[in-house]
């Protein structure tokens, strides 16, 4: 009996090692030529996107992706004369999809920072945002000092920059991690957390929709974040083409026009 049990454990372990080997193999094979050539040859560009992150990206009831980031993806595909293929990811999946070559690009409210730059590549920014600290309208919390207390629960979506921002803004507070931004907002609304730390534009669109009914902000802006398109690291040709696209997209004013369409107000300047 005991031996049979050991055998089962061993076979489970072996299956794991096999799985690991399988996971590593395709990545090696794909790296032979530039992603640029692969995309042109394939006729599709695979773009990682998050479904639950409006107005950047979300899903229509019929399952079609829509939003500011989705429009940018469609423009890139049109410029390359290929079709966009959407790869649905969650917040951390934006990085893994690039690392494992499941996606050629990540266009998903993706902040360029030094840490991430060590594992994936970024274009220049097409948007610059900050961080906001949101509470319920009738909350007792008034200042950032009130928030920095171990009794205060801060809801964030894990894998995003809001996690590091929350720890930096209020190191004493208790962090509760959720899978999606919407879950953190739901937790705030239902009283399971006291505060939500989030990016300033998402915050602005939530407050605009809410129209003072349930939320307000703690005054102040708490970060400077460059939103850019992510690419797998180490592929200069692919980066050159996509970065060129972003340069023209921003400077032609198309960026600001698209922004206004989805966010409903003028785009903050890119410094």
């Amino acid at each position, binding site marked *: *009996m005991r031996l049979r*049990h050991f055998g*089962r*454990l061993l076979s*489970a*372990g072996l299956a*794991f090692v096999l*799985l*690991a080997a399988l*996971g*590593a193999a395709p*990545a*090696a094979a794909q*790296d032979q030529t530039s992603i640029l050539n692969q995309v042109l040859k394939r006729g599709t560009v695979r773009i990682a996107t998050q479904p639950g992150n409006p107005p950047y990206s979300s899903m229509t009831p019929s399952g079609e992706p829509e939003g500011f980031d989705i429009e940018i993806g469609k423009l890139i595909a049109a410029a390359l004369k290929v079709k966009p293929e959407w790869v649905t990811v969650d917040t*951390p999946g934006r*990085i*893994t999809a690039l*690392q*494992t070559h499941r996606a050629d690009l990540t266009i998903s409210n993706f902040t360029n920072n030094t*840490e*991430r730059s*060590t*594992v994936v590549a970024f274009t220049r920014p097409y948007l610059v945002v900050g961080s906001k600290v949101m509470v319920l309208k009738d909350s007792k919390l008034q200042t950032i000092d009130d928030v920095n207390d171990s009794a205060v629960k801060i*809801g964030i979506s*894990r*894998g995003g920059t809001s*996690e590091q921002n929350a720890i930096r803004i209020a190191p004493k507070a208790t962090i*509760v*991690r*959720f*899978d999606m931004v919407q*879950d953190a907002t*739901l*937790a705030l*609304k*239902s*009283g*399971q957390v006291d505060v939500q730390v989030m990016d300033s534009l998402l915050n602005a669109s939530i407050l605009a929709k809410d129209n003072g009914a349930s939320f307000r902000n703690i005054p102040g802006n708490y970060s400077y974040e460059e939103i850019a398109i992510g690419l797998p690291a180490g592929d200069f040709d692919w980066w050159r083409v996509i970065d060129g696209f972003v340069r023209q997209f921003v400077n032609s004013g198309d960026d600001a026009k698209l922004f206004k369409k989805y966010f409903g107000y003028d785009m903050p300047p890119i410094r």
Partner: protein
Amino acid sequence: MYQFTIEAIASYFGKLPLAIAHTLELSILTILLGLVLGIGGALCRTSRAPVLRLLGRVYVELLRNLPLLIVIYLVYFGLAQLGLRIGNFESALIALTLNTGAYMTEVLRGGLAAIDRGQYLAARAQAMSTVQVYRYVVFPQMFRIIYAPLGNLFISVVLGSSLASVIGVEDVMTWVHIVGNESFRYLEAFLVGGAVYVSLAQLINLSRLLVGRALLRHQAPGARA
């Protein structure tokens, strides 16, 4: 190309024992409470009172056909919106227990149904009381029948407990996410997390085997204690 190195996440292993403790705590409590709920459910489902039978049936069909994730969301977010705020660990425990209890009900009911009516009658004919009938005749035979399906159920509890991470319970799955987010070594984190879950499931299974063997030896076939 992706360079696979476990050493890259070595600095996070110190936080793993606490995460494992939380996963084990959640799993074991769920199994114990689920057993209690399952016994109640199975007695309802086999009861002579139609109201109890209906109640048991509605519970099982509802909870068995609801995704566990939805039950977790309902307990954590849904009840909170109605003003009943339950902490994230407790919410996960309640949701997992409700889900497990439904499956446990069916496993136990199956065990009860497999005991022939003649066994009850024969035991009664030996002048046994109701408690004695269950203690010496029904339960020992039932235990043999439900022994294997219970193993499946226990493993699915351990694996299902990973869903608690969506409401921020600091379990093994949350450890995996934190390691991935901070080190960007997601593949390594997933594999280590996976290996931990395999080991925990096997650990629970091994305890079931040991407990079962001890009990079955004690209750050998035909033995009268």
